[in-house]
């Protein structure tokens, strides 16, 4: 059998995947869409400005003129049926909701229900947010100071290039942290058995003491994945020998097996319980104790007065952008949270919305070539607590640089009350409802460019913020 024949064999075999498997895939993707920062390919997303305005300086120098347009962001107060007649003044403060006529290009398209949530408890605060980033095909673990924004590799070896197994942090995934101690799964590519299986382990590393410790490993290759943290426990999937869902106590290094719930997958944690959601299309959520025992139905919390979150594509502007609105279940009482939203994050029991503004009519957010410079923008961060109906301004931020979008890894961008916001505005445009990506100025449906925007790290209690950028 030649290579082409083998490929045809797999083509037909993979095509025979069961509907159950495909259903799991579809459900997983729909669940991903509920998470902040998701950018679905089939949904209209931010269209960066298409107009360029370049000024060419006499005698061989180029300059870009950059100015800000006034960013108009407002929050409507809910209107009831008994509200008095609008005056011109109140009309300006409370503009009419956008038309819902299908023929109107500014129509609302209520695609998303705000996902029900499970209350999160306070957590130990450290000085850093940890995340992985892809630099030239290598995964590097970074730490970002929440006090200064300084971003450096976790590896402190000044001679290490972080691109080979000699680096202690090479091939780390699912980075988590408790205070200034990070935890991650490490894939030891150098250790392969005769069947091609890799050896995985879990390590801890304390930034303050430089102590590195392997806290979970086996003598034989196993595959670890989907690690999550709740308090002192790390939950992760083991495939291969001893497979199943495990829980590791990071303080005692005790490992136990967690009882799976048939027909469910682990979704999250709250109030010393594991929350499981059904893998099928129907069914109630379940809650068990932290070892998977004593299952009982569990109802998540539904946001007070807010059941829909909407992405609006405004075709009337030169270029398109996303606005985030909320409304009640019937699409009435729409309130605009932020007009041009370029970042969204879940922050404990709140949502954060980052709006950045620039003169979209005159300057591109995407330069034709990545090295041509980064756009500096100002913006506002709004916070929307889950148990209220009102978003409020958390902070105004200055000089955020954009030239790509941010890859955050499998980790949580948080420590205590500090949360990182991923900014994902720039690398895509919309072409007939399909996402396409710029690749050195050439439209390419499959090529993607991974460059880093600044990360905005905000404190949801105080409104302080820092801007963090990895400088190679």
């Amino acid at each position, binding site marked *: 059998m030649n290579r082409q024949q083998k490929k045809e064999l797999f083509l037909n075999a993979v095509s025979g995947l069961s509907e159950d498997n495909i259903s799991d895939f579809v459900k*997983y*993707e729909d669940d991903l869409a509920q998470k902040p920062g998701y950018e679905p390919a089939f949904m209209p997303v931010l269209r960066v400005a298409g107009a360029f305005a370049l000024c060419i300086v006499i005698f061989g120098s180029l300059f870009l003129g950059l100015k800000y347009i006034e960013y108009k962001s407002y929050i409507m107060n809910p209107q009831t049926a008994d509200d008095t007649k609008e005056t011109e003044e109140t009309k300006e403060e409370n503009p009419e909701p956008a038309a819902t006529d299908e023929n109107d290009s500014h129509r609302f398209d209520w695609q998303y229900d705000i996902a029900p949530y499970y209350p999160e408890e306070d957590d130990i605060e450290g000085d850093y947010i940890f995340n992985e980033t892809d630099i030239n095909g290598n995964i590097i673990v970074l730490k970002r100071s929440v006090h200064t924004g300084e971003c450096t590799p976790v590896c402190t070896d000044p001679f290490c290039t972080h691109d080979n197994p000699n680096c202690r942090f090479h091939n780390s995934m699912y980075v988590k942290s408790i205070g200034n101690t990070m935890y991650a799964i490490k*894939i030891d590519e150098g250790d392969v058995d005769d069947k091609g299986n*890799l050896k995985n382990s879990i390590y801890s590393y304390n930034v303050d003491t430089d102590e590195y410790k392997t806290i979970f490993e086996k003598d034989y290759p196993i595959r670890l994945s989907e690690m999550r943290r709740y308090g002192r426990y790390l939950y992760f999937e083991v*495939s291969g020998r001893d497979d199943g869902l495990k829980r590791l106590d990071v303080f005692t290094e005790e490992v136990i097996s967690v009882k799976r719930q048939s027909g469910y997958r682990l979704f999250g944690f709250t109030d010393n319980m594991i929350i499981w959601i059904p893998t099928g299309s129907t069914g109630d959520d379940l809650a068990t104790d932290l070892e998977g025992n004593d299952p009982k139905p569990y109802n998540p919390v539904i946001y007070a007065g807010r059941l829909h979150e909407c992405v609006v594509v405004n075709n009337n502007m030169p270029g398109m952008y996303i606005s985030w609105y909320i409304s009640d279940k019937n699409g009435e009482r729409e309130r605009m949270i932020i007009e041009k939203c370029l970042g969204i994050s879940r922050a404990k029991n709140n949502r954060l919305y980052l709006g950045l503004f620039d003169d979209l009519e005159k300057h591109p957010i995407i330069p034709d070539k990545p090295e041509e410079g980064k756009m500096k923008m100002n913006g506002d961060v709004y916070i929307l607590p889950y148990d209220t109906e009102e978003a409020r301004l958390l902070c105004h931020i200055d000089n955020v640089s954009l030239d790509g979008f941010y890859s955050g890894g*499998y980790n949580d961008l948080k420590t205590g009350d500090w949360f990182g916001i991923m900014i994902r505005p720039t690398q895509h445009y919309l072409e007939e*409802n399909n996402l396409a990506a710029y690749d050195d100025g050439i439209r390419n449906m499959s090529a993607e460019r991974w460059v880093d925007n600044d990360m905005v790290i905000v404190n949801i209690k105080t409104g302080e913020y820092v801007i963090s950028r990895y400088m190679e």
Partner: protein
Amino acid sequence: MLLKDEEIIALFFDRDEKALTETARKFGGYLKAVAANMTDDRRDAEECVNDAYLAAWNSIPPKRPQSLKTYLTVLLRRCALDVIKKNKRARRIPKKMFSPLDELADLIPGEDADSALDERLLTDIINSYVSSLPARQQYIFISRYYVNRSAAQTAKKLGVSKSTVDKELVQIRAGLKEILLKEGYNL
């Protein structure tokens, strides 16, 4: 407002052509994006999507899918295979669908395999293996080899780096290879 799946399926059962309009409204963007990954040009992609709508119209009823999106994904894949067959007859070699299969073809070493390799057995093995994977890895496998997304596209859906997905795919394939070897695919 978009209709729920049950409401659209009811339109199919009523043989109301609005069923197709509503299906396109709700899933059109998704299907076009998936079709674009499975075909080599826009014309073929449009043909696949239209064929999937037609296949849905012709099969519902009596079929009553639990998830319309799942059902349409399966129909789309079948339509993409038909397009491949048509292109092969026209001596056009489809690149996109076969490109990720290079990674799977490596799992079966040896060039002198005979026809004893049973496609149905391989299908069962892959089905069983994919079902056994953790949810995220199952998602990555199907995204890469069924829906035909690039590792970068899959990484973007997950909000992780491409390298992360590449490494997970290495692990997933290693596991599949182990099972194939146990089943005697080591010619």
